[in-house]
């Protein structure tokens, strides 16, 4: 599903160049649930941003579902993002003047899906995350966990190849975190490929594979026994 070869990325900070990713080789197969771990500054978010086409790579190659991701201009990136990827952010990033259902329907709008179908799908995915009765509420009327579930529904709505979550539980307490992780595991059980950036070991343990980043290189890549979040809920 994802193939990365010899990936380099550096940021220019004034006269200094900060080499963040120093040659990453990394593959993800369909249906995997991968945690990307590392301390802050290890380059884990940068890696996710490049995978998510929110940022461009300097060197190396990136193939997503057999499509080489090269020469990304904004329009092309927008189309790929819309078609291939669903995002889940630490700070939820819901549009605050749109209701939960409208937020979920938004990626479908950019896919050109008709209004009626958008609404139906939005409700379907809200139901999947258990928030159907909250469909008409604004984000400000929802709790943090509910917001993140709406964001997950939104990421799912576009039916992406890969879900990318950047610290999805970073802004949540541990009980809510486990609920969200339970949801993510269920989505993964349904066959979705999911990448999660986290620095919390207990969250990483709920994934099937853990990739450790340190100073821009992968230091460890291991398959783990998944801890089911449902036992904590």
């Amino acid at each position, binding site marked *: 599903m994802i193939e990365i070869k010899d990936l380099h990325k550096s940021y220019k900070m004034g006269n200094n160049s900060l080499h963040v990713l120093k040659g990453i080789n990394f593959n993800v197969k369909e249906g995997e649930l991968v945690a990307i771990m590392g301390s802050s500054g290890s380059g884990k978010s940068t890696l996710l941003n490049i995978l998510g086409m929110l940022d461009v790579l300097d060197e190396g190659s990136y193939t997503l579902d057999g499509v080489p991701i090269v020469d990304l201009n*904004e329009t092309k990136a927008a189309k790929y*993002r819309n078609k291939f990827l669903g995002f889940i952010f630490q700070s939820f*990033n819901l*549009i605050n003047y749109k209701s939960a259902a409208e937020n979920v329907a938004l990626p479908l709008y950019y896919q050109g899906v*008709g209004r009626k179908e958008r609404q139906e799908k939005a409700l379907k995915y809200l139901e999947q995350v258990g928030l159907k009765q909250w469909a008409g509420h604004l984000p400000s009327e929802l709790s943090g966990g509910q917001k993140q579930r709406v964001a997950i529904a939104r990421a799912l709505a576009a039916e992406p190849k890969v879900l990318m979550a950047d610290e999805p539980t970073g802004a949540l307490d541990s009980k809510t975190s486990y609920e969200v992780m339970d949801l993510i595991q269920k989505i993964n059980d349904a066959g979705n490929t999911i990448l999660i950036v986290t620095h919390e070991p207990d969250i990483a343990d709920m994934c099937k594979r853990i990739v450790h980043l340190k100073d821009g290189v992968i230091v460890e890549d291991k398959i783990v026994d998944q801890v089911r979040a449902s036992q904590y809920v």
Partner: protein
Amino acid sequence: MFSRDAWKEIFETIQKNKLRTFLSGFTVAIGIFIFVVLYGFGNGLTNTFAKFFGDDATNVFFIFPGRTSVPYSGYKANRQIEFDNEDLADIEKNFAMFVDYITPRISRSGLVKYKNESNNYGNMGVAPSHQYSEKTIMMKGRYINNQDVKDKTKYAVIGRLVERDLFKDEDGLGKYIDIGGSSFKVIGVFQDDGGDNEERKIYIPYTTRQLIEKNTDKIDQMVLGFKPQIGYSGAMSLESSLEKYLKSKKFINPNDENGIFIRNIADQLKQNQQLASVLQIIVSFVAFGTIIAGIIGISNIMVFVVKERTKELGIRKALGATPKSVISTILLESIFITTISGFIGMLLGTVLLNSMGDTLEDYFITDPYIDTGIAVFATILLIICGALAGYVPARKAAKIKPIVALRDE
């Protein structure tokens, strides 16, 4: 770009961001409104000027005698110049090419009586062509004609208000009134657009007036109507050659400013029109200043709107919005708001102008109006500038990487 869905999205955004919508709409509406009203006032000012000087013919010279201020060809200074009937005939003969008509004016004022009613009115000995120079409109009867002048008849043409004052509800035509001790038959009643004072006048044949005053042939002043075809420059040269002619005829030093005065209405009218158009220019300047202020206002708001929406736009981009759709969302929204509110402002301004009519006449503003073309042009200008002002930050926002836009503050 113009699909129903895109518009629905825009309407929803507008509805759910009422303050933002109101602010940008209000800026545009008030800008256009003030522009329309100011510009209309400018036109009203011009109207007032046109009205002030519109009731008299404009192809007219008034020629007044004065007193000489320097001695010349054997005459002392401070000599009173007088005109007489011969001057009339001579001017008519010598300037036949340019002169349409010439009429004397002998102005007197005195008690006018009819039965028990009496009042003081100005009366004026005139020739028939005086009717043209004053644009006198006959309501009933007739004006003084050449036969009256020849026969020195005691006929009088009275103003509408004179008839109303003296005759009340009676018909004055054919009745006899007493003007300064002589009895005159009323042969006509006139009206005049120049106002009440113009309608409190009495005209009599100038020869009659001369007969009453010991059969003199003196006249007070002359009113000369020139042929309109000679144009403005023709009128100016006629004025100077007329002055030269009369000065030599009356033995006045050619450089003496005080012997004879010629008031040239055409010149005055032109000056007044120039004054009015200068005022119009100033008012238009202020009005366009308002438009520019409006443009700056809407530009500020657009910059602010885009700034405020940076995060939202970042989210939209992460969800698959292309830069094009980001720009078009912002632009269509701003164009929609400015168009609607611009036309609301324009309509309100126009309605206000139309409803004012003559109510501001005391402030020299008559019938203010604005050409629809100018109003629409200003509105469209504001819309386009608002769109341009929105486009620059919108394009910038569309170029921002979503990761930058989404970064937590």
